[in-house]
């Protein structure tokens, strides 16, 4: 995007290989591949905010220079409705020849691991059909979720979480350019809160800068705790105290307002059980029940009904009864 952008993640998104902090080894190899002008399909695997999209854009910019926007298509597999939509967009984009001297275009498919196995099979065929005109860069969080036939057609790069020194370098650069000050402890808190996700770190300082140009540990902590999705603890507390109706209402609220899926909810419940104030024996039973409900949730049709049946078990546990 343009340099004048006011979203810092965009404003300070590196546009050259040299500007990227961290991932040194990957940068070196991708740069070589790009310069050879004979780019294979690439698969970028790694956690969010480690530079996968950035690197894809840099590749496009290096290859196509001022024509990069015309020759670069970005799709997000978790947003596009099904593989058919993706195939159609790819077809439309790949039909025309690339502008400039490079004989192919680049399609960046973000979050490719959101596609089902069947959809990935279809994607593999699409990749083959358009190899003459297009190169694919796929990104995913876990390469294990990408089917082997695709992996074998790509050069795989594994991105690591950014280290503290890299995140700090980015922060310092932005602070200097934007005229804001961060104290030493704030750096520390941002790094911890970001969990190595650079995008999150930048969003954190921009959000706090919107409140005050002096960024302290305190404000970062406040932002971190406010930005956290409402957790399921309160839902479980209501259930354990016997207030089933409140508990289910709260659950529905969280699922709808935070747009959390049933499977995500059940995962957080499973993690939360161990912190609950109940007998260890009961925790084992509750975890077993949670597993059973997760299974039924996959088999069944109505996530909410399944979760309600789990909450009813928590009500029982709250009464000290056997499950």
């Amino acid at each position, binding site marked *: 995007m343009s340099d004048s*952008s006011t979203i810092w993640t965009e404003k300070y998104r590196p546009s050259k290989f040299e500007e990227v902090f961290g991932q040194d080894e990957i940068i070196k190899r991708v740069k070589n591949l790009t310069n050879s002008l004979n780019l294979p399909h690439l698969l970028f695997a790694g956690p969010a905010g480690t530079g996968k999209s950035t690197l894809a854009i840099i590749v496009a910019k290096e290859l196509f220079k001022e024509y990069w926007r015309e020759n670069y298509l970005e799709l997000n597999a978790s947003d596009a409705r099904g593989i058919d939509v993706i195939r159609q967009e790819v077809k439309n984009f790949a039909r025309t020849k690339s502008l400039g001297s490079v004989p192919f275009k680049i399609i960046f498919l973000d979050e490719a691991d959101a596609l089902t196995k069947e959809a990935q099979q279809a994607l593999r065929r699409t990749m083959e059909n358009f190899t003459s005109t297009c190169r694919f860069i796929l990104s995913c969080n876990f390469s294990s979720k990408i089917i082997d036939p695709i992996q074998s057609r790509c050069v795989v790069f594994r991105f690591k979480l950014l280290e503290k020194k890299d995140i700090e370098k980015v922060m310092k650069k932005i602070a200097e350019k934007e005229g804001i000050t961060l104290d030493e402890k704030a750096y520390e808190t941002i790094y911890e809160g970001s969990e190595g996700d650079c995008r999150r770190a930048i969003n954190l300082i*921009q959000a706090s800068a919107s409140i005050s140009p002096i960024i302290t540990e305190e404000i970062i902590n406040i932002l971190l705790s406010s930005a956290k999705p409402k957790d399921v603890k309160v839902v479980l507390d209501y259930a354990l105290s016997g207030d089933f109706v409140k508990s289910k209402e709260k659950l529905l609220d969280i699922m709808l307002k935070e747009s959390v899926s049933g499977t995500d909810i059940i995962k957080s419940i499973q993690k939360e059980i161990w912190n609950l104030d109940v007998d260890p024996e009961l925790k084992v039973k509750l975890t077993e029940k949670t597993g059973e409900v997760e299974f039924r949730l996959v088999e069944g049709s109505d996530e909410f009904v399944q979760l309600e049946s789990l909450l009813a078990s928590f009500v029982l546990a709250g009464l000290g009864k056997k499950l």
Partner: protein
Amino acid sequence: MPDKPLPLFEKYRPKKISDIRGQDIAVDKLKAFITAFSRGISKKKAMILHGPAGTGKTTLAHAFANEMSYELFELNASDLRNRAKLDEILKPSTLQQSLFAKGKIILVDEVDGVTSTEYGGLAELIALIEKTKFPVIITCNDIWQSKFSLLRSKCELVQVKELNYLVVVQLIKEIALLEKRPLSERVISEIAAKSRGDLRAALNDLHSIIYFDEEILEEEIQLREKTQDIFNALKEIFKLRANQDTLEVYENVNLELDQIMLWLEENIPAEYRGEELAKAYDALSKADVFRGRIIRQQYWHFLVYQNFFMTAGISAAKGIKNLPQRFIKYNPPRRILKIWMINQKEAKKKSIASKYAEFTHTSKKRAMKEFFLASLIMNDVLIKELELDEQEIEYLNERKLQAIEQIKAMQNTTK
């Protein structure tokens, strides 16, 4: 009777005990209690009339006081907090007894809402019962809530049951005639059935249709039959022991099985508690698993199992010994409406998130998750860059304000 703008149930509220229909046992018990109290031989100083709405609990107290020339003092929850008023009422009758009244009756109407913790709650009520020199009558819908356990032990309990269907039919008929609006048997029986023993509801219905044409009325009633059936079906599931007929309960219900599932989901917690609740939801959960399998495999024979868990499964969740007799008002499913309402509200969030996502090379999902930070980041320049429309801007500003307030509040507490 002159036409006063009164609701029918007020207009025809019985003034004498002999006018009260269908509650003979409750009337006798109340009589016996007051008589025993006045002779100083009653064991308890208060009586609780409990039962579903519209069965005549308050009417009973009023009619009784009226006919026996007692003065009736009504107290509500806020009066219980008012020391001066309480003392005034509790003064011995010799000091302020009215000339004609024989004595006093204290009526505490509808204690359901009184809480056990706050001042002016149950503790004050119990203190009142201990101090009083006059009989206390308490009315309540659901006396079996645990918060009332102490109160129950201090009082005599009298159940005021749902009115018998035939009694309701007869009363509607008589009142309709008095209102010069004779109705067909079908309409009358329809109103009576719908009321399920709640005379106030029946008379309200009657009131609302007195001004209708008979024709519109018939249509109206046909529309209502749909929900009629589901009410009866739910009643059979929840109140009766599972038997061979249980499996066919939904056959006459004019709703899809999917919708019936939502009705069950909504009303299980009203009917079941604790272990029964868990068992009932487990059955519903199993029904849903079979539904999922039908959808995925198109193997329709699974419907047998889905139906089984939705009928017998939920019915058998209750203990065999104590079939629930409490009257429960079933609610139509609210989840779908709630989803729709929240989605309406969140639609703006989604459209903003989708523009933001495209701009920042990320997914909509992630933008939704990061919305809190994003709302702070989005300034006026960015709003233009993202081409947000007016409604989106309004929504965003609202969220932004909320976020800032939340942060300020947290800053204050840490200081």
